[in-house]
């Protein structure tokens, strides 16, 4: 059965709709509750994982390196849950990294503007009039966050199968529509789409295992074959390749590791100028 991924301009609205869909369809519900165990595994405070899903990196907030590390753990935990099937997922940015998986139904739900202003006002955003300005700012912030984290604009409707605004369509109707949609043949798991998701999950696990030592690694999986891309100066290439292979081969599901090491021209230039 399919995976339903809900994104929203408001965490509260998204959670409410996603929970109701899970109740209607009888699917499992996956949200930020999975971040606790993920944080314990990563030895990072849970608060930082939540921050990495909401804020761009900054001097006073999360550094770019820490944010990437946090997001890698979030992705690993989320993809592991999505493999289970029959899942409604919200609040973990899955719409931005579960790409090319045809049985993932992605829907964005937009809060009624007055309601969004009220929510912000309740969360300490000041009077509802002031909150309207905050809405615009938040939208720009969400766009900036998604572009920085996954190079995709999460406000762009082409990243979803459907966008539903709750201005005129009531939440019950939205829930019913999404639940009906998930029954369409196109959203049923196929051999290929399940393989795509499994590859992503394996790549996520390998990346997490490698990134403590090699934070810049990019990992792709195809069945049990892993392709790792990294950068190093010439004399370190051999050493790095062996280290990566040593770390990756022990991971469950990995049979073969291919390492591509590109020349790190900046470090190379710095070394040679010493």
């Amino acid at each position: 059965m399919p995976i339903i991924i809900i994104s929203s301009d408001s965490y509260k609205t998204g959670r409410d709709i996603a929970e109701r869909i899970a109740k209607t369809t009888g699917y499992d519900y996956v949200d930020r509750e999975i971040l606790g165990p993920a944080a314990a595994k990563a030895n990072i405070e849970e608060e930082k994982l939540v921050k990495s899903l909401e804020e761009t990196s900054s001097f006073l907030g999360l550094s770019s390196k820490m944010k990437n590390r946090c997001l890698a753990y979030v992705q690993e935990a989320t993809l592991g849950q999505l493999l289970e099937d029959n899942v409604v997922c919200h609040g973990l940015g899955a719409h931005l990294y579960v790409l090319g998986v045809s049985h993932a139904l992605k829907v964005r739900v937009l809060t009624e503007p007055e309601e969004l202003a009220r929510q912000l006002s309740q969360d300490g955003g000041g009077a509802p009039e002031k909150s309207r300005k905050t809405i615009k700012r938040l939208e720009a912030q969400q766009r900036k966050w998604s572009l920085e984290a996954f190079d995709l604009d999460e406000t762009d409707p082409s990243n979803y199968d459907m966008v539903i605004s709750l201005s005129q369509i009531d939440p019950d109707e939205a829930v019913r529509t999404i639940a009906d949609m998930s029954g369409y043949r196109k959203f049923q798991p196929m051999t290929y789409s399940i393989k795509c998701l499994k590859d992503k999950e394996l790549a996520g696990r390998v990346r997490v295992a490698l990134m403590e030592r090699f934070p810049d690694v990019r990992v792709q999986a195809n069945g049990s074959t892993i392709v790792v891309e990294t950068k190093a100066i010439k004399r370190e290439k051999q050493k790095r390749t062996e280290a990566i292979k040593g770390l990756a081969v022990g991971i469950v599901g990995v049979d073969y590791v291919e390492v591509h090491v590109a020349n790190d021209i900046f470090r190379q230039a710095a070394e040679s100028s010493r």
Partner: protein
Amino acid sequence: MAVITISRGSYSKGKEVAERVAERLGYECISRDVLLEASDHFHIPEVKLIRAIHDAPSILDRFKHGKQIFIAYIRSALMSRVANDNIVYHGLAGHVLLTGVPNVLKVRIIADMKDRIKAEMEREGISEEDARILLQKDDEERRKWTRSLYGVDPWDSSLYDLVIHISKLRVSDAVDFVCQAATKDQFKTTEPYRRKIEDLAVACQVKAALVDPFFDVGVTSEYGNVLIYTKTGDRQVGKLKARARAIKREVEGINHLEVHAGVQFPENAI
């Protein structure tokens, strides 16, 4: 019943969705008709108006206050049709032109670029690269046009009730969703809604009749009682009042008409 606007890019199958929704619900499907009516008023051939709309809103600037006049005419033409109810409109910026109409279901249909390129290649017999360039140019022109005339980005999903991505979803699925939503109570034309739409249609007609040369007026109508607002309090007001008296005879549905000079427009003024 309801009013449905379907916004679309070229080769996004939005026209097909609109026609099938209209057919299934037994509604009238309109698009170019509104343009034809507006071009009659505008006294320029439809083909020129299409170019102005599609390629370059700057053409409208050659006419004094061209943009305001154009919007007033096209809005009036569209609102007259909407007053008849049971309409699917898949033409220009319906979601913006029908601001104030309470029961409009606003839909946007989008499609994957690769599918659009394939459709354009097949239809025009051109290369993939040429099709991509043409589509990107077309999208950019449409975007520029709506921004220039209405100050909104048609790609902004918050302008619509539903944005449907024709890729994994088929045209028939999109038709199902739109028809299902359109039958909900919130989109039904109740008696107060009908009254409001009739008033809006009257206000739009009055505005269209005045806009050249009185481009800077606001018009409201309530139960056929029309108020014309102008910020200026000079001798133009005399001419405006004379024109307003003539309009009272020309436009149907006006009970009473007043001109208020030197005051701010209310928010709901056309």
